[in-house]
């Protein structure tokens, strides 16, 4: 009982302050996780569901891969961002106008993986006692794009449980992470190649 209580205290302690979060993130060299995504839209009665996996290697490599319903992969390798989409049976590099907006999002995710939730000058970061972080845009122009971002930290130090990006009250995206492994080696090619 005492050991269990100590473990709970240890695991929850990492979310108690920005310093403890930064400290926990310093030990993170890589993260691998599966995710499910719900896209809630006012014009849809039910959310759009998708799933995939996310790979991160410190300091700035990220692979954001959707396996279904539309296979695609967004790669960030030392600041260079590419997206590949499977159309039919072939993979093609995406050149859509959405990519610059996603570049902003990818860099932000990279910051979170490094525990630097409070370092983006565009957002005011508030840490709540239950391990919840709320990011609110400082500029009105950005607030028209993203109303707020809510991150729920997991019990495992350095790990995020869920991210909810609110565009407004009726339109938001929620990602739940599961099967998270930390500090397992990842082939660097995973951040350069679509498959």
């Amino acid at each position, binding site marked *: 009982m005492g050991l269990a209580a100590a473990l709970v205290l240890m695991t929850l302690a990492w979310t108690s302050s920005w310093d403890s979060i930064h400290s926990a993130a310093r030990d993170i060299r890589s993260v691998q996780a599966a995710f499910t995504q719900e896209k809630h839209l006012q*014009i849809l009665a039910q959310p*759009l569901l998708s799933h995939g996996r996310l790979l991160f290697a410190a300091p700035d490599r990220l692979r954001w891969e959707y396996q279904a319903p539309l296979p695609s992969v967004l790669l960030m390798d030392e600041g260079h961002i590419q997206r590949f*989409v499977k*159309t039919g049976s072939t993979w093609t590099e995406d050149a859509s106008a*959405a990519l610059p907006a996603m570049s902003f999002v990818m860099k932000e995710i990279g910051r979170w993986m490094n525990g630097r939730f409070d370092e983006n000058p565009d957002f005011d970061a508030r840490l709540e006692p239950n391990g919840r972080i709320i990011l609110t845009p400082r500029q009105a122009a950005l607030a028209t794009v993203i109303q707020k971002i809510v991150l729920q930290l997991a019990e495992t130090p350095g790990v995020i449980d869920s991210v909810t990006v609110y*565009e407004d009250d009726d339109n938001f995206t929620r990602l739940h992470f599961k099967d998270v492994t930390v500090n397992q080696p990842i082939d660097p090619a995973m951040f350069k190649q679509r498959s």
Partner: protein
Amino acid sequence: MKRIHWLPLITLVLIACHSLPAVTPEEQAPAGIEAACRDAFPRQAWRMVHTITTDFPGQRKGVMLGVVSLVPEEHTVACALLSIEGLRLFEAHDDGTLTIRRALPPFDRPALAEGMMRDIRLLFFPPHGPPLLIGRMPSGDPGCRYALADGYQDIVRKPSGDIVILRYDQRYRLTQRVDITRCHPDGAAGQEAIACRIHLEALQPAQYQLDLDLVEARPAVDNPLIGY
């Protein structure tokens, strides 16, 4: 002799002028063809999600998600463009008046919103009013020709159930061609067939191509455009 001299000039003028492809009037069951033309489009309210693929120079492609919620009975439509990751780039509602609810650059140009709604109406709504002509199109397939305020529209029913839509301007120039393959989407057994694959080729005035592939579709049995 003089008449002979005029012939090359008349021939040149005829070649230079566009004309609409001939529609051979159908004596038998024109009402059936007209119904088939109208039934080519959704009759009930649907919410649909398609991938939208655009071709760019250099064999590059742009892919986004298109969400459309339409109520044919009321002739209203709401639509959204999303990045593949779900970032909402554009959203608009059109019930006769176009209301743009969100438009991130570069989707914030008014002409883009109007063009997008025009394309959505072309793909999912039949033209207003009865056809001008009903009969056999040059391909031999049954079809209908509608007169529009700014040109003409042909709807052709292929034996496979597929649909071809041809839009012409007032000078009879082909401005858009649409090829639609219909299916019964997963989870919507017993419902009407809807567009699963769409290829839209715009020729005039802007040139572009779009390929839409259905990701999911649900009949909007509840309040279809709640909140609008």
